[in-house]
């Protein structure tokens, strides 16, 4: 079908308008999960192309944005599947994030917290934290050094609430390895956030 024909077809969707009305939203959704601007842009484009193809099944039933986000979710999962197939990573990654140094190596209190790494009382609430733009920048910085697959597993679990089985399928890993990876992500992130946000110098 040529462009002219499509313009005359009253059934044809106005995909250009999708970009204007939903583009930024879809992009933010993807960026939060993929953490890479180029990959987020690509996946938005893939989503809208797939939406054009699938428009006949949708035909304006229900919210347009909800429909597009549904497609985007699938595209993001496909992205993770592809990435983990290509990665050829070892079964368990992030040995350097086991953070043995957080705990005492020997003595009466061996394997208990080292005082300087021991968790503090954050005195924070989700409602207050979510409003802090700077907190989210620090969060991204803390997530950054983690191996790609560990960070992805953590976000799929905590942001999207996927089950262990779902994440194992998407990332092609075994459940015990997933739990080790999630544990390392938490150990690292908690420490990094405490250091750079909750105990930051000059905090009032």
């Amino acid at each position, binding site marked *: 079908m040529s*462009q002219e024909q499509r313009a005359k077809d009253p059934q044809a969707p106005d*995909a*250009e308008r*999708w*970009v*204007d009305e939903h*583009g*930024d*939203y879809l*992009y*933010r*959704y993807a*960026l*939060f999960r993929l953490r890479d601007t180029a990959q987020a*842009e690509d996946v*938005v*484009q893939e989503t*809208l*192309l797939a939406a*054009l193809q699938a428009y006949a099944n949708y035909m304006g039933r229900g919210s347009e944005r909800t429909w597009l986000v549904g497609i985007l979710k699938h595209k993001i999962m496909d992205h993770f599947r592809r990435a983990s197939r290509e990665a050829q990573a070892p079964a368990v990654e992030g040995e350097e994030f086991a953070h043995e140094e*957080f*705990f005492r190596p020997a003595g*009466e209190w*061996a*394997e*208990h*917290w080292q005082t300087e790494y*021991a*968790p*503090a*009382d*954050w005195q*924070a*609430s*989700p*409602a207050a*934290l*979510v409003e802090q*733009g700077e907190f*989210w920048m620090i969060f991204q910085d803390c997530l950054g050094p983690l191996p790609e697959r560990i960070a992805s597993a953590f*976000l799929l*679990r*905590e*942001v*999207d*609430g996927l089950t*262990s089985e779902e994440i194992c399928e998407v990332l092609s890993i075994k459940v015990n390895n*997933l*739990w080790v990876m*999630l*544990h390392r992500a*938490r*150990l690292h*992130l*908690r420490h990094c*956030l*405490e250091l750079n946000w909750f105990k930051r110098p000059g905090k009032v």
Partner: protein
Amino acid sequence: MALCSKATHALRYFLLRHLPTCQQMVAVMSESMERPLSLRERTMLRLHLWVCAWCAWYLEQLHLLRDTLRLRAEQMNEDDSAASRQLSNEACERIKRALANRP
């Protein structure tokens, strides 16, 4: 009163010495976010948290992180005017071209 607090102190000390260590407990706490713990694990964890404020804060923080991230995901619906979280003009044009030229 003083005797009672002394006894509690001794009990806490005893527990901290004989329960699984903090390093073992942090792994269990992470898994408690993923699967139901066994009765033994639950008991050990509860006793450990009773005597170790550091680990109690640790578990609280794991839940706080989860709750905050889920809330953030929900609030993505709201308008976000930060330019860094909008599609660039170039990306918009590129996507529109791809949509117009699709086979």
